[in-house]
């Protein structure tokens, strides 16, 4: 089951570059929340703060509070614990090229020492079914490497890999931007189904995509969150002029 995320006064820096400024928002459980905005506005940095990936860069710094469920992730937990609860799918598919499809999906569990074979088999199948890849790969699970799949399949493999550790939150950083329209629509269908079980935060450049998959949408601009509301309101009746300019294509 997904959990809600509560963000208060989140600030983030890359070196001296203040990439996120005073972000406050509440992300509801079991919904998809889309983050839109022009390139470099801080959307990606924001999701990377939710699983503490931002700080893996030595020059990066974060202040503020992020609560996932009732855990303050910057106070009460180590990054490793957070990342086990918060799955992430990256912009470019990044399967492990030296592992089979099966091992790719099982990687997160094997990493944590989970070795019950039968349970692993079940989890791998379930994750691949959930990411709508099972039918395409079930015959070559152990024969083919993760890198031998097409780009869209690779991205769904990465989603399966993230789902296999049964996360509470799934972060997706422009998951479809490197994919063709058919693969994109498969990923979107997937997001639609997955939000029954997970809290999903999706960064996207594609406003139609945000409108199709998300209940709530946040608009970021220059490191600040300009507006956060239901997707319907953002796209039909935004209260901020800048949001309106962006979604009508006047800039960005």
């Amino acid at each position, binding site marked *: 089951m997904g959990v809600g995320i509560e963000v208060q006064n989140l600030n983030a820096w890359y070196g001296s570059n203040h990439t996120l400024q005073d972000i406050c928002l509440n992300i509801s459980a079991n919904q998809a929340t889309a983050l839109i905005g022009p390139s470099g506005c801080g959307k990606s940095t924001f999701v990377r703060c939710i699983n503490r990936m931002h700080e893996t860069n030595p020059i990066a710094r974060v202040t503020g509070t992020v609560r996932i469920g009732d855990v303050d992730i910057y106070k009460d937990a180590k990054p490793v614990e957070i*990342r086990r609860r918060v799955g992430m799918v990256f912009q470019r598919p990044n399967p492990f*090229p030296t592992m089979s499809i099966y091992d790719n999906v099982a990687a*997160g569990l094997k990493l944590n020492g989970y070795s019950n074979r039968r349970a692993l088999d079940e989890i791998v199948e379930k994750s691949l079914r959930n990411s709508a890849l099972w039918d395409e790969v079930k015959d070559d699970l152990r024969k083919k490497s993760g890198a031998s799949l097409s780009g869209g399949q690779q991205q769904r493999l990465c989603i399966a890999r993230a789902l296999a550790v049964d996360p509470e939150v799934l972060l997706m950083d422009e998951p479809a931007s490197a994919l063709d329209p058919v693969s994109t629509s498969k990923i979107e269908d997937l997001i639609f189904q997955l939000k029954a079980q997970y809290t999903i935060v999706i960064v996207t450049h594609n406003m139609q995509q945000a409108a199709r998959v998300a209940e709530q949408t946040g608009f970021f601009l220059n490191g600040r969150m300009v507006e956060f509301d239901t997707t319907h309101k953002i796209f039909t009746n935004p209260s901020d002029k800048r949001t309106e300019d962006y979604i009508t294509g006047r800039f960005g």
Partner: protein
Amino acid sequence: MSAAPPEIRVNTEMAAPQQAGSGDPAAKSAEPSEVRKYLLSRGNSAFGDRAFHVLMVLCSLTIFGIVALIVWQLVLRSQMSWHAFGLKFFFQRFTDPDTHRSSFWDPIGQQFSALPFIFGTLVSSFLALLLAVPLAVGTAVFLTEMCPKILRGPLAFLTELLAAIPSVIYGLWAVFILIPQLREHVNPFLISKFGWSGLFDDTNPTGLGFVASGIILAIMILPIISSLTREVMTAVPHSQREAVLALGATRWEMIRMGVLRNARIGIVGAVILGLGRALGETMAVTMVIGNSAEIHKSLLSNGASMASVIANEFAEAVGDMHLSALIEIGLALFLVTIVVNALARVLVWAVTGGAPRQAH
């Protein structure tokens, strides 16, 4: 809406030369510009190009020529020993008719076998790998994944500086520092703790031998293994590290699964390249290996390597057969190192630049 007017303008522009443009092109052809005149005066440069081509082909052929010449000379001058001993040269052991002692290498009795030298080369090289690989990979992991950025450059430079030290200097250092230490402290310790294995016995009190040459070789091949390992590890895309981290991996797990696993073929290549260097290393090994053509189980005993026996005996060879046998050892060493190096290069190349990789 704003796109429409330029489209119309483009159309008229394209139509214009056809209708009334005969004046403009005519004026151009009457008076070619300075640039055009200069370029026309340049000719087609065919001769220069041809000459350059021939020159470059000659340069590259020189390299192949040198290699071919070496092989030809080695083959030619090892004929005598080849005809006398054949393939048995590489694994025979014979008994001295007078003393009834078995031996491998008897220049006076004209009996030659490469076996103890092949044994010595293999043992000292693998000992070197055993010591150098963990150190080198550890250094590479530290430098690429853990070291603060400001220290990375200087430390990498220092590691690579080890490769610039002439091997005779390593040999001298070993003779004056390493060997006494081994003799006084390390060897007695090995004998008392691991003597039961038979790999360390106390028949040789000099401190010279396989252990000493293995340590020296390890230091000498450390820089090449570690710098190549660093290179292949740096070539692993950052997204692979992030993928592992995002699954909740610790730093060590990230390095193991995200970096070492992806770089492993290249690391094997780096190790084999180090092996190639160890196989052929001459000076330092000759100074510390003890130089006796024998085969013992003990790693503390004296031995000789293929390179060291050539260095030691070539100038003072007694008779043509002796010389020919040494050259045949040289030929064998040459072929083995070429094959090992080629294999290693292919592996490193496959990781850093060759085979296209799907993941980014």
